[in-house]
């Protein structure tokens, strides 16, 4: 019995170490592959998640969307903070204009709201609880959407969604490409969400709108102003 127990113990240790090793290798592989262009020259449309910030962020994102080919990026799902009513309204105006352009043909677009982890002025103690709820909600949304393409441009709302997308890549649920456009308001330094997604290599491609920012963050692409 003792020998059996010992065997069982050592076997389970080996298995656990093995699993840890495999997941580390997998994480390194995912980080290595992130930022590498997709090889498949597929012409199939890709399901796209668009994370709308607020105010100026949303205006910039709408500009990006109007330059993208809608038949390639579909179905589209828009996500905005639950406290932000304007952003989804603006997105639905854009989608409505597409319906008109297609001669009344309904384009598949969905609009969803997400809880924010912390509202302006909320205390840090209560924000632990709300952050947990926000993460759970983000996970639930991502399981439902499983997008192939994620477009975001800050602020904080997009970070949990992008981190979950990264975990999906590691686990093998969905391989997605994350594109982050830093706001035009950021001239000298990246925003906190931008910095996180850049440093942790979660964003596949990172765009900045000022040349001096690109010099500071060499992996970023300078794309000129969107506004």
């Amino acid at each position, binding site marked *: 019995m003792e020998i059996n127990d010992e065997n069982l113990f050592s076997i389970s240790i080996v298995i656990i170490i093995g699993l840890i090793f495999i997941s580390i290798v997998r994480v390194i592989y995912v980080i290595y592959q992130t930022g590498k*262009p*997709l*090889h*498949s*020259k*597929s*012409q199939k449309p*890709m399901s796209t998640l668009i994370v709308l910030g607020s*105010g*100026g962020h949303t*205006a910039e994102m709408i*500009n*990006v969307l*109007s*330059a*993208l*080919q809608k038949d*390639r990026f579909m179905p589209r799902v828009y996500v905005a903070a639950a406290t932000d009513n304007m952003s989804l309204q603006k997105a639905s105006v854009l989608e409505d204009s597409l319906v008109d352009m297609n001669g009344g043909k309904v384009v598949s677009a969905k609009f969803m709201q997400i809880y924010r982890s912390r509202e302006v002025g909320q205390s840090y103690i209560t924000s632990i609880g709300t952050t947990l709820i926000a993460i759970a909600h983000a996970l639930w949304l991502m399981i439902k959407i499983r997008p192939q*393409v994620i*477009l975001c441009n800050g602020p904080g709302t997009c970070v949990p969604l992008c981190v979950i997308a990264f975990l999906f890549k590691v686990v093998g649920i969905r391989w997605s*490409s994350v*594109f982050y*456009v830093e*706001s*035009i*308001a*950021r*001239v*000298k*330094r990246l*925003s906190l969400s931008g910095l996180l997604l850049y440093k942790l290599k979660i964003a*596949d*491609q990172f*765009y900045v709108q*000022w040349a001096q920012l690109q010099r500071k963050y060499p992996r970023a*692409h300078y*794309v*000129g*102003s*969107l*506004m």
Partner: protein
Amino acid sequence: MSHRLPLCRVDRETHKAWLCQRLICEYNLCIKKMGEIEDSENRRMVFVTVGTTLFDALVRAVDTKEFKQELFRKGYTHLLIQMGRGFYTPTKSEAEDGSVAVDYFTFSSSIADHLRSASLVISHAGSGSIFETLRLGKPLIVVVNEDLMDNHQSELAEELAERKHLYCARPRTLHRTIADMDLASLLPYPAGDATPVAKLINRFLGFPDD
């Protein structure tokens, strides 16, 4: 048949009267419109906007005597203040010789109309407000809110000021900016373009270039 004629006459009479009245009406309207056009030609409005923010330092700064005097000296006739969530209410006044007319409101759904009818815009440093004004080609002074903790927004205003698209000021120095500004030296802001981003995204995903 016999009763048709008198009815007709009555009809004709009322019609005549109605026509007369309409003519008078249109004439009056015309006179009024001409007056308005003349008015708007002489009217040079300065529009101050704080968006949805609380920026009493700016509202206070544009409510000072020296600021209004400076505006009048520069040939402006009206000052319209959108004060947002601010608590400080500026003093309303009619146009008199030697001063500008002052009016204010908190929020409005027709900010775009006010921007369009303004000869000069003084705005908080929010990017939405800045680019909306620049796109309309209006001269713009951005006033940075020094009370904000994380004040990255001054970066944008300062950068655009360096490129001569607008003037950047602080509440305390605003009247001096008005005095020293030379609107002819401002350069028009070129419209933004999202095609470089779209091209890079497409290329990354393996979609062919158009």
